[in-house]
C-alpha cells in the first residue's frame, strides 16, 4: 500500500528484470504513483483491482487497461434498481471517508437522484472504524433503506453491528457486493441475510464458466472464490489471449496493445471485453441477494443488468 515502495519495485521489475507486462495493482494510490513511470516506459499495464475512475479517465493512457471495475461502475445500476424495482424513495448513504468510498457512494447517489430519489442523509465514518455504534445510532429511521459500501475488515464489523443495533429489522440494507464478499460471509453469519447488493461477480452465478471456475478454485484453495479471484483470473486470461493473438510476439508494442484491446471471452463473471475508448472493462452488473441455502450463505443473483443498460459513464 506504500506508493514509494511500489514504485521502487516497479523500477526493479522494468529496469532490472526487463518485464514486458505489469499486472496486479490493488490500491488506487499505488496505481497513480506507478502510472507516469510505466507509461513513460511504454509498459502495458493490466490493472486487476485499483478502482479510481481517473485511471481510465483523465489519467488514462493507451498502455493502461483495467479488467476489474471503476468505482461507481457497478454502484450506478443499483440506483435505478432501488428506485424502479424496489420502489425506494428516501435512502441513507454510508461509506468510508476516503477516495474510493466517496467515489462509489457518488455512483449510487447519482443514478438514484437522476431517477427522482432523495438521499436524506450521508454518513462517512473513517476507514477502519472499529465501532460503528455512534454512526448507526444516528441513522434517520424515516428512510426507506440504507445503502452502504464497506470492504475488508470493515464489512464484517459493519454487518454485525447493523444487526446488533436493531436496524436490520427496520431498514433494508443495500450495498456494494464488496460488503458481502464471499470471504466475509462466513464471519458475518446470519446478520448478512437479506442484504441486496450490486456487483460484477458472484460465486453463486449459475453459468458453465463460473461453475467450472468455482469447482477448480475450491479444489485448489479450499474456499469460495470472490471478486478478487475472478479479477486475478481475468487479468491473467487477458494476457494469455492477447499473447495468443499475436503468436507470442510482443516486439511491436502497438500491435500488442491492439491485441489486448480486442480480447473478448466469457469469464467466470460473464462476457468480458474492454471499452475501446477508455480501455476500462465493460461488464454486466448483477443484483444479488444474500441468502442461506443448505446452511451456507450465498449471494444469489436476482437480476442481471446488461452492460448496455448501465448508464454509468467515465467521469470526464
Amino acid at each position, binding site marked *: 500500500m506504500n506508493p514509494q515502495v511500489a514504485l521502487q519495485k516497479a523500477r526493479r521489475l522494468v529496469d532490472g528484470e526487463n518485464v514486458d507486462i505489469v499486472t496486479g495493482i490493488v490500491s488506487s494510490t499505488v496505481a497513480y504513483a506507478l502510472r507516469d513511470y510505466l507509461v513513460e516506459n511504454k509498459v502495458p499495464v493490466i490493472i486487476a483491482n485499483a478502482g479510481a475512475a481517473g485511471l481510465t479517465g483523465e489519467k488514462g493512457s493507451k498502455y493502461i487497461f483495467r479488467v476489474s471495475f471503476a468505482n461507481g461502475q457497478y454502484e450506478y445500476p443499483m440506483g435505478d434498481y432501488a428506485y424502479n424495482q424496489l420502489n425506494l424513495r428516501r435512502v441513507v448513504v454510508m461509506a468510508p*471517508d476516503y477516495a474510493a468510498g466517496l467515489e462509489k457512494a457518488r455512483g449510487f447517489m447519482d443514478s438514484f437522484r437522476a431517477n427522482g430519489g432523495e438521499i436524506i442523509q450521508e*454518513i*462517512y*465514518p*473513517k476507514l*477502519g*472504524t*472499529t*465501532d460503528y*455504534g*455512534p*454512526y448507526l*445510532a*444516528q441513522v434517520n429511521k424515516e428512510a426507506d433503506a440504507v445503502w452502504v459500501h464497506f470492504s*475488508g*475488515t470493515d464489512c*464484517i*464489523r459493519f454487518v*454485525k*453491528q447493523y444487526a*446488533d*443495533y*436493531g436496524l436490520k429489522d427496520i431498514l433494508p440494507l443495500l450495498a456494494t457486493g464488496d460488503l458481502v464478499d464471499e*470471504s*466475509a460471509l462466513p*464471519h*458475518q*453469519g446470519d446478520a448478512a441475510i437479506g442484504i441486496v447488493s450490486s456487483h460484477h461477480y458472484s460465486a453463486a452465478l449459475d453459468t458453465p464458466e463460473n461453475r467450472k471456475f468455482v469447482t477448480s478454485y475450491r479444489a485448489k484453495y479450499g474456499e469460495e472464490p470472490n471478486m478478487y479471484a475472478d479479477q486475478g483470473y481475468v487479468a491473467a486470461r487477458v494476457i494469455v489471449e492477447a499473447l495468443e493473438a499475436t503468436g507470442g510476439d510482443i516486439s511491436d508494442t502497438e500491435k500488442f496493445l491492439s491485441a489486448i484491446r480486442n480480447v473478448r471471452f466469457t469469464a467466470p463473471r460473464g462476457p468480458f471485453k474492454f471499452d475501446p475508448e477508455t480501455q476500462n472493462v465493460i461488464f454486466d452488473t448483477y443484483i444479488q441477494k444474500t441468502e442461506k441455502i443448505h446452511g451456507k450463505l450465498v449471494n444469489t443473483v436476482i437480476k442481471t443488468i446488461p452492460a448496455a443498460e448501465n448508464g454509468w459513464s467515465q467521469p470526464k
Partner: protein
Amino acid sequence: MEVTQIIIQVLNSISYGLLLFLLAAGLSLIFGLMGVINLAYGSFFMLGVYLSLAVIEQTGSFILALLGAATAVSLVSMVMEVCFIRKIYNRELDQVLLTFGFAYIFMDIVRWCWGGTPQSLPKPVMLQGSISILGAIFPVYRLAVIFVGILLALVLWLIVEKTRMGVIIKAGVDDKEMVSGLGINIRLYFTLIFALGAFLAAVGGVLGGPITGAYLGLDSEILVLALAVVVIGGLGTLKGAFLGSVLIGFMETFGNAFFPNYAMMTIYITMVAVLVLKPNGLLGKDERP
C-alpha cells in the same frame, strides 16, 4: 438529537470507554509500575483474539477461550520478560527497539498461523441479541462489556491499592534497591506485573474481539489507542487510565456523532487539549525533578 439517540450514544461511549480501559490498563501497569515501554502490547491483544478464536473453534466455549488465551499470552510474556526485558530495565530506547521487534515477530507468527483474511470472534450465545432500553435498541454484549470493565477496574484498583503485592510493587518502582534490601525478590514481582499486563491485554482482546474482529494490523491500531489513553490519563495511574478511557470513549462517540468529518482526529484533538492544560495527563504527577 432525540432522547433515545442520546441514551444510545451515552451507552456507546461508556462501553467503548471501558473497552479502551481493558486495553490500556495493562499498558499502564507495565509502563507505570515497571517503567518499561512495551510496544508489543498491541500484539498481546491481537494474540489474545486469535488464540481465543482457535480455542472457540475447538471447544465452542467463550469462557475457556478467554482463560486459555489470556493464560497462554501471559506465559509468552513471562518468557519475554525473563529472557529479554529483564536485561534492559532503565534503558528505554533499547526497550522500544526490542519490543518493536517482538511486535513484528508476533505479527508474522499470526500471519503464518491464521493467514491474512479478516476473521471474527463469535459472541457467547447468552450475550447475543439486543435489548430495548426506553425504546432504544442496544446490543446485550456491549452491556456485558460495561459490566466486566467496571468489575476489572475495581479488582485492579484493589490489587494495587489494598494488597501487600501492590505496596511492594509501588515501593519497587520508587526504589528498587531498597526493596531488594528488605529481602523481597522484586524481580519476581516485576515479571508477575509484566505477565499481568499481558493477561489484561489478552482479556481485552477476547472481550473486544466480537466487536473489533481479528485481522492483521489490529495490533498497531490497539497500541496507538492504548498509548493515547495512557498519555491522556497520566502515566502509571490506573485511575488516570480509567478516566482517560472513559473521556476518549465519550469524545470519540459524540465527536463522531456531531462532527463525523473529523472522526480521524477526535482522539488526537482530545490528547492535545489535555496535554496543553495538564502536561502530565489528567492524574499524572510530575515525577521528574
